[in-house]
């Protein structure tokens, strides 16, 4: 059969004078011509049959068919029939460690049963699957099953009177039972704009306005990212990318998306609220940060980034403004509007992809072949900025930016940046023969480990620029102890003993103590 196929393939394709490996269009074209013809006949026949039988066949169908239900409910019904434990396994038993959802994977029997039910269902309906490997690894599936069901943030605190009103039952340990939880999802007010009070405006971007807000359900502060839909054809791609990527990113160093409110006129994404971004933080401490804090922030940035890269997500817009920081010192990556799954080709990505200051020279010189190293250059620039109190390469144009980079790091050569001698863009600039400064002269606050690490980010050749997970293992971070590498994804490094934010030398008012902050504010008079 294969020989026949091969002959056919080559025959048909050669006849048309094309290479064998022409893609989808080719085959799609080939298949459709004939299939449509074949289908047309079939379709006419079936159409007649169906319109003829339609009324009669209906009751018969109803008897045999399981009532159609939205999938989640469907699963839910199936699984409750199996008398599984009532408590919602993970999220409700979740322990909350300072804003970090720590999922408790106590669901083995539950999911296994669910699998059986599904399998039974599949068998019943005679699935013509050539392979049934979906059941390959039950264990693996558990966490996903749970995540799929998780539509409420696990740290939700519901008012007592609300529970009474909804006559919701609490399980013995004082938590909502799973059934009540599910029933109450929409009643509680998720997905509704009325559930949030809008407070101050935090900022305005190109496609969204961000407000500080408060959840009426939990009294927690939230950030409301309001996206106008007027000029868009449906949902904006930035929102689609941001939401579909963030849904899958559950990490202590990535901002949590709580809720999505989608109406005709606008789309509001509800995020956890963090007090400030790294830019504000650096401003507030007069640009003199404690080196311990630099280390803590840098490590968290790498941790979040390594997690993203592991999931084939590039951030592509790293800058201090997109790194959010709370009072405890937890740093979280935010603003994934420009991030896209790695597998995407670059075609014509637009200019504002990376703020110029944090953009690597290979991209500035027109390279479209970028990947994870695009983020790592930015990490180096941010590292320098935290340690030295000023931006490393604050260029205003591409020309300016490149000059600043080459003045400091030397003009690239074929050794440091393969292919540069043939780069037309590079040649037209005709840069003076800048020689590299030693990094210690520009970053005197860094010790030898720090300088070595900084140099690893600032490699011209993206192929040898350090990766996020390798950078985390650098000796610069040895002082944080070995346990920072053993934490589960969703656990903050501040849960480890001995890891705390230090007082920044330049900080005028300590933002570290909650009460202290307020007191000092009133003392300003």
């Amino acid at each position, binding site marked *: 059969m294969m020989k026949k*196929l091969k002959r056919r393939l080559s025959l048909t394709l050669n006849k048309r004078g094309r290479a064998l490996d022409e893609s989808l269009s080719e085959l799609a074209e080939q298949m459709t011509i004939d299939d449509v013809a074949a289908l047309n006949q079939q379709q006419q026949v079936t159409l007649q049959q169906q319109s003829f039988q339609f009324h009669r066949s209906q009751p018969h169908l109803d008897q045999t068919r399981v009532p159609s239900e939205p999938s989640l409910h469907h699963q839910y019904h199936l699984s409750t029939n199996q008398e599984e434990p009532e408590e919602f396994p993970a999220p409700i038993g979740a322990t909350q460690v300072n804003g970090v959802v720590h999922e408790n994977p106590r669901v083995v029997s539950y999911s296994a049963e669910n699998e059986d039910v599904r399998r039974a269902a599949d068998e019943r309906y005679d699935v013509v699957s050539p392979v049934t490997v979906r059941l390959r690894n039950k264990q693996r599936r558990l966490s996903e099953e749970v995540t799929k069901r998780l539509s409420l943030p696990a740290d939700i605190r519901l008012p007592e009177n609300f529970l009474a009103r909804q006559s919701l039952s609490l399980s013995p340990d004082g938590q909502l039972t799973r059934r009540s939880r599910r029933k109450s999802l929409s009643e509680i007010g998720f997905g509704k704009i009325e559930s949030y009070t809008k407070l101050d405006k935090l900022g305005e971007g190109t496609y969204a306005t961000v407000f500080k807000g408060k959840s009426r359900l939990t009294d927690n502060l939230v950030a409301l990212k309001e996206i106008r839909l007027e000029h868009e054809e449906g949902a904006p791609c930035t929102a689609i*990318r941001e939401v*579909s990527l963030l849904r899958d990113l559950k990490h202590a160093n990535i901002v949590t998306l709580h809720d999505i409110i989608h109406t005709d006129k606008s789309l509001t994404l509800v995020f956890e609220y963090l007090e400030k971004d790294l830019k504000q933080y650096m401003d507030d401490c007069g640009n003199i940060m404690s080196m311990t804090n630099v280390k803590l922030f840098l490590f968290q940035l790498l941790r979040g980034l390594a997690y993203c890269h592991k999931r084939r997500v590039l951030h592509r817009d790293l800058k201090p403004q997109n790194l959010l920081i709370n009072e405890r010192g937890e740093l979280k990556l935010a603003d994934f509007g420009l991030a896209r799954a790695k597998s995407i080709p670059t075609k014509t990505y637009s200019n504002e992809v990376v703020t110029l200051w944090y953009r690597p020279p290979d991209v500035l010189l027109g390279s479209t072949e970028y990947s994870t190293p695009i983020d790592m250059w930015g990490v180096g620039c941010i590292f320098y900025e935290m340690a030295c109190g000023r931006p490393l390469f604050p260029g205003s144009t591409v020309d300016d930016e490149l000059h600043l980079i080459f003045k400091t790091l030397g003009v690239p050569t074929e050794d440091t940046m393969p292919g540069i001698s043939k780069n037309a863009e590079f040649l037209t600039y005709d840069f003076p023969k800048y020689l590299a400064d030693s990094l210690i002269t520009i970053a005197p606050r860094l010790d030898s480990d720090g300088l070595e690490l900084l140099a690893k980010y600032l490699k011209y050749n993206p192929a040898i620029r350090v990766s996020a997970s390798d950078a985390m293992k650098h000796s610069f971070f040895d002082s944080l102890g070995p346990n920072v590498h053993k934490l589960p994804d969703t656990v903050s490094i501040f849960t480890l003993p001995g890891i705390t934010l230090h007082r920044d030398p330049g900080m005028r008012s300590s933002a570290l103590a909650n009460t202290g902050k307020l007191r000092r504010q009133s003392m300003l008079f």
Partner: protein
Amino acid sequence: MEHFNLVCLETDVAGKPQRAIKDPVLLNDKRVLANLLSTEDKYLPHTNYFNCVQTDIQPYMRKMVTEWMAEVCSEQKMEEEVFPLSVNYLDRFLCIRDIKRTRLQLLGAACMFLASKLKETSPVSGEQLVLYTDNSITLEELTDWESQILQLLKWDLSAIVPNDFLDHILHRMPLTKSIQSAIKRQAQTFAALCATDVKFMVTPPSMIACAAVRTALRNLNCDNGRELLTLHDITGNDMDLIRDCTEQVEQTISNCMSSYSSGKQDSHKQEQPTTPTDVREINIMSVDNHQGVPVIF
């Protein structure tokens, strides 16, 4: 100046958009592949919905609509992942909600709309998609269904498709660069063909990727008898299952090729193919058709 600098080297080379490089950070890191394998099941349609959810939709309708989608994607030169992704959304939607046959093409269009927005730098316009249905749907319906899909799938759109595995698999096989790219292109085509075939609906993407790669290897006479073991080592998929799936893929291809050769004669006789597949045919069909194809069941 800035614009000039970036844009002038970013133009497509020989009409083909440049693609992101194969990133050694991603390809060499075992965890990336492990992570793909561990999440792929999450995005599989969980049931054969023809039997238990849909009251009107039949398997042949899915075939027609997916083939129409494949055509639109290729004619619009969309990214390779857009087509399999949109079929994934379609299947997952149909697992949940019962729809009428008259709405199936609308659903397919809205799924492409979303996948294109997710994956492409310059996504296809809604108007273009409306034209492709020969104005049988409106822009309003398209955006309305788009938001229905988003809500039903809970915005969970970054699904995993067979294409995601191809680089990871090929990177770990002892192949020369040119063979590798030839195999990749063929495997992509085979994987796309599988997306139009109902029998692969609940097959995990990594399995389809393995089978597509193996078919391509055999097709190009690059098989050495050890590739089954290699594929097993890379993905952890059972060897017997890979073998079975490869046979199914080959079967699908040969069905498609044989019906192609017979279909071609038919279409010559008829001289009026229902589905225009190139510009000349469209002109013959009708001038004001806007290349649109209403899929009528």
